[in-house]
């Protein structure tokens, strides 16, 4: 049974949330990198924290190596599920080229989190186009102009060191949670609810690792 104090506490918290305008989070990557799972975990965690949440994903032919984008918006009331140009508070790019492709979605003073990892698209594999060499510098330059913050992670390597490179999405999830200032929540419980028990340990560690950035 809830005590009056607990109710008051909850009401206060709700009040704080109402004051906060809705936030927009853009996840970009390549089919098969685990962006959609990370988005699902984030959305579920945000719902459990009492936010109105909308999440939109485009994954038409993404299994076949295409770009994948998921958009998450949360706040007291969310209308459009889509993020417009310069509207993303946080962008997390699972791949460097995708970071460059979507960086103009970043809001002034927003945070861009980049996995320092390359997946060559077909035109590069075929030698028709070169994979841009100086992407990190380009990203840094752009983010600086936006007075934003750039965080570069070796999520792929870090996850591999923890046991499996596929857990890179949880490293990046940790970094996003940190960037949004939402660490004060039982995220690991949500992560576990989406994964079979044998993967719990690895993914918890990967998430913790991401939180340290």
């Amino acid at each position, binding site marked *: 049974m809830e005590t009056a104090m607990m109710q008051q506490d909850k009401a206060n918290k709700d009040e704080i949330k109402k004051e906060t305008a809705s936030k927009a989070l853009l996840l970009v990557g*390549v089919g098969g990198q685990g962006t959609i799972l990370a988005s699902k975990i984030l*959305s*579920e965690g945000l*719902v459990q924290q009492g936010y*109105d*949440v*909308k*999440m*939109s*994903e*485009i*994954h*038409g*032919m*993404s*299994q*076949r*190596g*295409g*770009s994948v984008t998921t958009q998450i918006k949360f706040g007291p009331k*969310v*209308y*459009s*599920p*889509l993020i*417009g*140009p*310069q*509207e993303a508070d946080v962008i997390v790019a699972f791949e460097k*080229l*995708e970071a*460059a*492709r*979507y*960086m*103009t979605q970043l809001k002034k003073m927003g945070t861009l989190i980049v996995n320092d990892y390359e997946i*060559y*698209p*077909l*035109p*590069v*594999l*075929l*030698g*028709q*186009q*070169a*994979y*841009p060499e100086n992407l990190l510098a*380009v990203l840094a330059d*752009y983010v600086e102009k936006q007075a934003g913050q750039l965080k570069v992670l070796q999520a792929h390597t870090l996850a591999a060191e923890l046991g499996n490179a596929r857990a890179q999405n949880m490293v990046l999830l940790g970094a996003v949670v940190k960037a949004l200032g939402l660490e004060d929540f039982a995220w690991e419980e949500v992560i576990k609810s989406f994964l079979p028990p044998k993967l719990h340990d690895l993914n918890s560690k990967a998430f913790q690792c991401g939180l340290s950035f």
Partner: protein
Amino acid sequence: MKKLLTGNEAIARGAYEAGCTVAAAYPGTPSTEILENIAGYKEIYSEWSPNEKVAVEVASGAAIAGARALAAMKHVGMNVAADPLFTMAYEGVNGGLVLVTADDPGLHSSQNEQDNRHYAPHAKVAMVEPSDSQECKDFVKMAFVLSEQYDMPVILRVTTRVCHSKSLVELEAREEVGIKAYQKNVQKYAMTPAHAKVRHVIVEEKLCELQKAAEHSPLNRIEWGGRKVGIITSGISYQYAREVFGDEVSYLKLGLTYPLPEQKIRDFAAQVGEVWVIEENDPYLETAVKALGIKCKGKDVLPLCGELNSGIIREAFGSPKGKKVAAGLVAAPGQELSLPGRPPVMCAGCPHRGLFFALSKLKDVVVSSDIGCYTLGLTPPLAVTDTVICMGASISAGIGFEKAFQKGGVPKKVFSCIGDSTFFHSGITGLIDAVYNKSKICVVILDNRITAMTGHQDNPGTGRTLQGEETAAVDLVPLVRAVGIKGENIRVVDPYNLAETEEAVREAAAATEPFVIITRQPCALLKDVQRARAGMYCAIDQEKCRKCKACMKIGCPALSVKGGQVVIDANSCNGCGLCLQVCKFEAITKAGE
């Protein structure tokens, strides 16, 4: 309890709560997950039908029999199902009938951008348009009620962003409505000209009645804000408009978009300074508003092509307070960088690759292709495909090509490439035409044992139903023989075996009768296949490699040139061995078998 659901999950939930008992569909993005989720409710019989016409007819029969029934399809699927739709408008229903059309503004995964709202007035049936997941669920339930009340099928029209966006939905219990009693009534359910003449009058009367009710329907609501501008909108466009203009303007948010509440529109327009109509693609609402004699802004500032978003709306209308709102668009540095694109590619180990590589070796061929992963046969470096129109057209359009070439004396061979599921959908009739009218085309059925592109759905060839039961599988060879293809003109090949595939393709090119090649190898992404081939990969012996890059011509994403060397990514490679077969220097070997 509130749950985060996609629009498609919410539509399925709505069908469940409404007491729906029969549901049918053919998979198609962005509608596929509706039936996948309905299949989880054991109270509902659900099926993958061979095509959308069959799905709508199954649902129609069930509705006449007394069940609440639903059929779902992507926008182009409604073209296939248009035949039963238009006549079901005359016959009406017994149990409610809801037909979901999932349109794809922006063409995320479609061959055109048609606006299916036009189907409602065209077929003379009601249409509802939800704008988020909660409305998806609520509107499905209301659509069943409207369908029974006004004795007509009801179209539920959604778009990609509604289907694939998640938002919170309040779950409720299922209402058990059972199956209504069926009574034979040929005047109503057997559309001969004599019966249809009578029914047409009734259809018009019912629409008039519903039009009056639309004026007070809770599906249409006004949200008052500032009165300088009044926005008329529906579906996802409502959400974009709300996001941009907030309470600065007023909204007439339409949920029942056919028939429209004409008086309500007039009253709303009279109470605001100016009227803006915000909608994606065609000026469907705008034309209706203008027909009422109301001046409005709409497609004079909004694009006809592509989807909308808040940026486009801001740019188009500025601010109702008079000052132009910054669109937030800056010159994108990404454009200056001319970043390499990331087009979809045939997966590493895709069994379609062998066939297209074999075709690329032939001269004087035209490839008429179809809708599926193998559409990618048109992309470089294979790039053998000439045409893609719609489901099944590979064969029939191929026949047209062949007949025209024959008349024009053009010595080109036509290959029609079609997947197993697409062949069952609408390829069989084309093949019958090829035999019946003696076309010299070669039909290649790319049998990968699944409906792959929409995310692995079962089909009549897989031996398994949507609800997971084992069933008879259509056997392609006897089917092809039964329509009249001679045994000596049929080849069944393994597309991983290049020599075998190339030989079949050469024989087909020389044939003077209709010819069929069936390439048989399951989709590389199927779980069983991935498990079976998990440790398999190919590797390049750099000592033997002469860097001729012949292997790069198969367009496999597992191969790349790094630091001047051709390398194979062992993780993405599944050891199909196609690259090994094109290497003249035996530099590639298979491992992990």
